[in-house]
C-alpha cells in the first residue's frame, strides 16, 4: 500500500466506524438526557450533594450551579497539586508551583488540558487520577450538559426552565462517559497501553546514560482523555508516547473515541427537537468542515512544501514512524477539530500551511464536531447567526426550529461569537507587545509568531494542544493563557445558557413554505460558508503574518 492509499483507508474506516456508532450513541444520549428515572447510585449522589433531582432550573440558576461547581473544581485541583507532597502516591514529587498549579487547575476544569508542565515528572499518581482524571470526566459532562440545555431551549415551548444542571452532570458522567471509558480502557490495555502503579523504572540507554521510565494508570486516563475531548496526556509526549498510544490501531481507536460523542450529539439534538433531519443537517455541516480540514492537512503534509521534507521525501519531522504522515495528519485534524488537544505528532513541525490548518480548525471555534457538548452548542450558535442573515433574505423575521431569532437571541449569539476571537487576538497582541511575552519565544520570524498565535488560539478555544517553541511555564504565560482558558470556556457557556433560556420561553412558530428550511444542503452550505468566511475575515491578518508568510515564501 502506498502512503496515500493507507491514509485513505485509515480515514475511510474511521468514517464508516463513526457512521455505525452514530445512531446508537446518539439515541443512548437522547434517552439519558430525557429519561425521568434516576438510577439508585444517582439518587445516592443527589442526596450526598443535597439537590432535588426533579426540580427544574431556569437558565440563570442552571448557570450559577455550573459556575459554582467549576469554581469548586478549580480550587480542589489547585489544592491537590499544591499539597501533593503531603498526599500519598506522590512518587516523591514536590508540590507544583503556584502559577503552574493555577494554570493546570483551570486547564483541566475548562476541558482544555493545556499542559504547562511535563506530566510524568510533575504530577504524582494521586493528582493524575483523582484531580485530573476526575476533571476529564466532569468537565466533559459539563460541556454536554450545556449543549443539552441549549437543545432543550429549542425543543421546549413557553418554558421557564432548561433542565437541572446536577442531573445532567451526573447522568452524563455515569451513564455516558463512564461505561464507554471502562470498555475503552480495557481495549486500550489489550492494545498495549499500560495500566499499573509501578514505580519509575530506571534503565540504561544505548548511549550509556540512564533514564527513569514512569509507569502508571495510563489506559484509564488515556480513554477519557480522548472520549471527553480533554487531551491532557499522562506523559509529556502525549499520544506520541508508546505507553499511551502504542500502535496504528490504538491510534485509530483514539481518534474514533474523540470524535464519537461530539458527532453523536447531533443525533441526540435531532431526537430532542423531534426532527432527526435537523440533526443530520448539523452533522453534515460538521462533516463537511471536518473532511475539508482532514483532506487539506493531509495534502499539505503529504506534499510537504518546506525545504526539509522535500529533501527527505516526506514531512516526517515531529511525526512518529509507527504512525506515518497520513495517520498523524488525520490525528492532528481530529484533535484540533474537537477541543481535544491530544497530539500524536508535533504540530510545530508540520509544514507551515499544514500547521496553519490546525490553527484554522481551532479558530472555527471547534465546532466540527468540536468538544463534547461545546462543539454542538458552538455549531448551533453559528447556525443561529446564519439563520439570521439567511432568514432575512427570504423576507421573514428569522427563525430556527420554530424559534424567532430576535434582538435578544442575536445579541447573545453575537456575544458568544465575539469571545474567542477577541481573546485570541488580544492575547496574541499582548504577548507580541510585551517583553515577558517575547522573551519566551525560542524561534524568530513568522514561525516564532505562529507559535504564540497557536498557544492563544488553543487556550481560548479550550483545545490544549501546543506548537512547541514557546516557554509557556512562565508566570506571564500561565496567567495570560489561564485567563484565556477561563474566559474562553465560561463566558460562552453563560451566553449559551441565556440563549437557551430565551428560546425556551418562546412559543414555536409553525413551519410553512415561507419558512427557511434548515435541513437542506442549501442551508448546510450556508452555515459552512458563513463559518469559514467569518473566521477567515477575523484571523486573516494574523495568519498572514505567521503561517501564510512562512508558507507562501
Amino acid at each position, binding site marked *: 500500500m502506498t502512503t496515500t492509499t493507507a491514509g485513505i483507508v485509515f480515514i475511510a474506516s474511521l468514517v464508516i466506524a463513526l457512521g455505525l456508532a452514530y445512531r446508537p450513541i446518539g439515541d443512548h444520549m437522547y434517552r439519558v438526557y430525557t429519561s425521568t428515572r434516576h438510577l439508585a447510585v444517582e439518587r445516592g449522589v443527589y442526596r450526598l450533594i443535597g439537590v432535588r433531582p426533579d426540580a427544574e432550573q431556569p437558565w440563570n440558576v442552571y448557570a450559577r450551579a455550573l459556575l459554582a461547581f467549576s469554581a469548586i473544581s478549580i480550587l480542589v485541583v489547585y489544592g491537590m497539586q499544591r499539597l501533593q507532597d503531603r498526599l500519598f502516591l506522590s512518587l516523591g514529587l514536590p508540590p507544583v508551583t503556584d502559577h503552574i498549579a493555577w494554570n493546570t487547575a483551570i486547564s483541566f476544569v475548562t476541558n482544555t488540558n493545556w499542559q504547562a508542565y511535563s506530566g510524568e515528572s510533575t504530577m504524582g499518581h494521586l493528582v493524575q487520577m483523582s484531580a485530573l482524571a476526575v476533571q476529564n470526566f466532569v468537565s466533559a459532562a459539563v460541556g454536554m450538559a450545556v449543549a443539552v440545555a441549549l437543545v432543550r431551549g429549542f425543543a421546549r415551548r413557553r418554558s421557564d426552565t432548561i433542565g437541572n444542571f446536577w442531573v445532567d452532570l451526573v447522568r452524563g458522567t455515569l451513564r455516558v462517559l463512564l461505561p464507554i471509558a471502562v470498555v475503552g480502557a480495557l481495549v486500550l490495555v489489550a492494545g498495549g497501553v499500560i495500566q499499573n502503579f509501578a514505580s519509575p523504572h530506571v534503565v540504561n540507554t544505548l548511549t550509556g546514560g540512564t533514564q527513569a521510565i514512569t509507569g502508571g494508570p495510563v489506559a484509564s486516563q488515556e480513554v477519557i482523555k480522548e472520549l471527553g475531548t480533554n487531551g491532557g496526556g499522562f506523559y509529556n509526549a502525549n499520544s506520541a508516547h508508546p505507553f499511551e498510544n502504542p500502535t496504528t490501531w490504538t491510534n485509530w481507536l483514539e481518534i474514533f473515541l474523540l470524535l464519537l460523542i461530539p458527532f453523536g450529539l447531533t443525533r441526540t439534538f435531532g431526537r430532542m427537537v423531534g426532527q432527526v433531519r435537523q440533526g443530520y443537517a448539523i452533522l453534515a455541516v460538521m462533516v463537511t468542515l471536518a473532511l475539508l480540514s482532514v483532506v487539506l492537512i493531509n495534502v499539505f503534509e503529504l506534499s510537504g512544501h518546506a525545504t526539509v521534507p522535500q529533501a527527505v521525501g516526506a514531512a516526517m519531522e515531529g511525526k512518529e514512524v509507527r504512525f506515518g504522515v497520513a495517520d498523524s495528519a488525520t490525528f492532528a485534524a481530529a484533535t484540533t477539530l474537537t477541543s481535544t488537544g491530544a497530539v500524536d505528532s508535533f504540530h510545530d513541525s508540520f509544514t507551515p500551511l499544514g500547521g496553519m490548518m490546525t490553527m484554522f480548525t481551532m479558530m472555527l471555534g471547534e465546532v466540527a464536531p468540536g468538544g463534547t457538548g461545546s462543539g454542538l452548542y458552538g455549531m448551533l450558535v453559528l447556525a443561529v447567526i446564519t439563520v439570521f442573515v439567511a432568514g432575512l433574505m427570504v423576507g421573514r423575521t428569522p427563525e430556527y426550529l420554530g424559534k424567532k431569532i430576535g434582538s435578544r437571541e442575536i445579541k447573545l449569539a453575537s456575544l458568544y461569537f465575539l469571545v474567542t476571537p477577541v481573546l485570541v487576538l488580544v492575547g496574541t497582541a499582548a504577548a507580541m507587545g510585551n517583553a515577558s511575552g517575547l522573551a519566551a519565544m525560542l524561534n524568530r520570524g513568522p514561525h516564532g509568531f505562529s507559535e504564540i498565535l497557536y498557544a492563544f488560539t488553543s487556550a481560548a478555544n479550550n483545545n490544549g494542544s501546543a506548537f512547541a517553541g514557546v516557554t509557556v511555564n512562565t508566570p506571564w504565560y500561565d496567567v495570560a493563557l489561564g485567563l484565556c482558558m477561563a474566559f474562553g470556556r465560561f463566558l460562552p457557556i453563560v451566553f449559551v445558557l441565556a440563549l437557551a433560556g430565551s428560546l425556551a420561553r418562546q412559543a414555536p412558530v409553525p413551519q410553512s413554505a*415561507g419558512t427557511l428550511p434548515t435541513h437542506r444542503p442549501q442551508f448546510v452550505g450556508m452555515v459552512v460558508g458563513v463559518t469559514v*468566511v467569518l473566521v477567515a475575515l477575523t484571523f486573516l491578518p494574523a495568519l498572514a503574518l505567521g503561517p501564510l508568510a512562512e508558507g507562501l515564501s
Partner: protein
Amino acid sequence: MSTSVLEAPDRSPAPGGRVGGGLLDPKQLMASLPGAFAKLNPATLWRNPVMFIVEIGAASTTVLAILDPSVFAWAIVVWLWLTVVFANLAEAVAEGRGKAQAATLRAAKRDTTGRRLKSWTAGARTLEWDVVGAPELRQGDHVIVEAGEVIPGDGDVVEGIASVDESAITGESAPVIRESGGDRSAVTGGTKVLSDRVIVRITQKPGESFIDRMIALVEGANRQKTPNEIALNILLAALTIIFLVATVTMQPLAIYSKGQNPGVPDSLALDANGVTGVVLVSLLVCLIPTTIGALLSAIGIAGMDRLVQRNVLAMSGRAVEAAGDVNTLLLDKTGTITLGNRQASEFVPVEGVTGAELARAAQLASLADETPEGRSVVVYAKQEYGLREREPGELAHAEWIAFTAQTRMSGVDVDGRQVRKGAATSVMKWVRDNGGHPTGDVGHLVDGISASGGTPLVVGEVTGGTARVLGVIHLKDVVKEGMRERFDEMRRMGIRTVMITGDNPLTAKAIADEAGVDDFLAEATPEDKLALIKKEQEGGRLVAMTGDGTNDAPALAQADVGVAMNTGTSAAKEAGNMVDLDSNPTKLIEIVEIGKQLLITRGALTTFSIANDIAKYFAIIPAMFAAVYPGLDTLNVMRLHSPQSAILSAVVFNALVIVVLIPLALRGVRYRPSSASKLLSRNLYLYGLGGIIAPFAGIKLIDLLIHFLPGMS
C-alpha cells in the same frame, strides 16, 4: 375660510400590482446634499455605530494627514469623509421623499374654522352655532359642515349625507359619499364637503388629527427602530467590534514582523511603528460593514415610503415588518375575492317551460327590483336571450311589486297575469297559496344550485287562476379575475388564506373552492373573526386582516397587521395599525410583499457587505506586508499597481458602492413570490456570490484609473 384645492401627491402604483420601485432622480441627490452634510454632526451620527466609527476614522486620519502630509494620505482622508457623506446622503434622500409628501399634507392643515353647534341632540330642528378655529375643537363637539366648506377635524357623521372630496389625503379626485350610521361615517379633517350638509361629531384630540399623524409618519419624525432593525444593528455592531479588534491587535504583530526584517525600508504603509495610522484606518473602514451600515436606515424609511406610495399609511415600522411575517391572511369575501354582488348566471326552467319563457318572466319580475341581484337578472336576460330591457313605465296598467326584506319577492301584476321572482321558500309558498303545486322537480333544482354554492331564485306565475313555478334563476358570486393565481402565490410564500363570509357553509365552500383559498369561515360574526384570529395566534401564527366597520375594530386590534379602510369608521381606523386610503381590501397582499421586500433588502445588503470584505483583504494585506514577507504578494491576485493604489482603490470602492446601492436600498430588491428556498438561492447567488466577485472587478478597475495619480507608486 380656506378652501384651497390641494394638489394630490403624485402616486403611481406599479403596473400589475407588483411591488415596484420609486425612481431616483439625480436632482433629488443634489437636493439632499446639504442634509447629508448636516448629518455629519457626531451628536446625531452616533446612533449609527458603524458610520460613527468611520467618522472617527476620517477625523483621525485628517489629523495624521495634516501632521504628515502626502498625496496618498489626503486622498484617503477625502474618500473616508465621502464614505460618511454618502451614507448620510442615502438617509437624506429617503427622508427627502417623505418631506415632499408632508409639505403637501401640511397645506391641508391650513387654518380652518368650524361652526360648532351648541348642545346638539339627534333630530334637533333648530341649530345654533358659533364659529371657532379648528384647534379649539374638542372631542365630542359637534360641527355643521355644508357644501363648499372644509371639515375642521376628524370625526363621524352623525346626521345627514354628503359627497366629500378626499383628494387631499387619498389623492383620488372622485368624491366619496359619507353618511351617518353604518360603516361610511368617518370623515377626515382637511377634506372638503362638495354637496349637502352633515353634522359631524369630532373624535380627535386637538393636534392629533389624522393628517398630523400622516405628516409625522411620512416625515419619519418619530421613527422608531423596528425589532428586526435593532437585531441587525446588534449583529453589525458585533462584526464592527471583531474587525476593530482584528485591526488594532495587528499592530504589535506588524511591529514584530517589521523588526524581524530590518533591511526592509519604511513605506507609507508600514514603518518601524507598525502599520501607519492612515492605512490602519483604511483597513478598518473597509472591513466593518459600512455598506449595510450606511443604507440600513434608508431601507427602513424607503419601506414606509413604498407603502405611502401605494396609499397605505402604516402607523409603525413594526407593523410593516410584521406584514412580512404574516402566516395567515383573513380576506373578506365580498369586494376582495368576489366582485361586489351575486349575478345571474343561468335560467333553469322546469319541465314544459322553455328557457325563453322563463327568461321573459324573470325579466318581467325583476324590472322593479333595484337590488344588484335584480339588475343582474335583467342584464343576463338581455345578454343571453336578447330580451330588450323595458322600463317599468312601458307597460300600462302594470302594478309593480318591489322587493322588500319581508316578502323577499318582487314582481308585477299585468293584464291578469301575476309574475313573481324571489327566495325559493317565499315564491313556492306564494304559488301554493294561489292553489298551485310546485313539482318535486323544483326542489331538486333549488337544492342543486344551493349545493353548488349558488343562490337559487324561483320564478312563479299565476295566470287564469292556475299557479305554477316556471323555473329557477341561478345567482352566483363572481370571483375576481386572477385571484386563484394570487392565492397560489401566497401558498408558495407559505401564507394561508382564509375567506371570511356571512354566507352559509355550503355557499362559502363553493366560492372558496373556486377562488382557491385555503380555508373559509362561513356565517362569520365579528366574534367568530376575533376567535379565529386568537386561535391562529395561539399556534404562533401572525394574522393580517382588513376591516372597515365598527364591529371589525376588536379583530383589527387583535390582528398583527390590521388594515383599516379609509372609508370605514373612526373606530376601525383607530384599531388597525395601517390605513388604506384607497380602501382596497386586495391591497393586503401588496402590503405583505412590501414587508417581505423590506427584510430581504436588509439581508441581501448585509450579505453583500460581508462578502465584499474578502476582496478587500486580497487588496490590502499584500499592500501592507508584501514588503516584509514577499511571499504574501501571491495574495495580490488582482495585480494592483502599488500598495498605495491598492489601499486607495479599496477605500474608493467601499465608498462608491454605497452610492451605487442607494437606488436599490430605496427601491428594495426585486421580490417575486416564491418558496423560501428559491428566494434564498437567488439572493445568495446575486448578493453573496456577487458580493464576493464584484469588488474584485471594481477594485481592479479603480486601480487602473487611479494609478496615474501622483504618489501612487
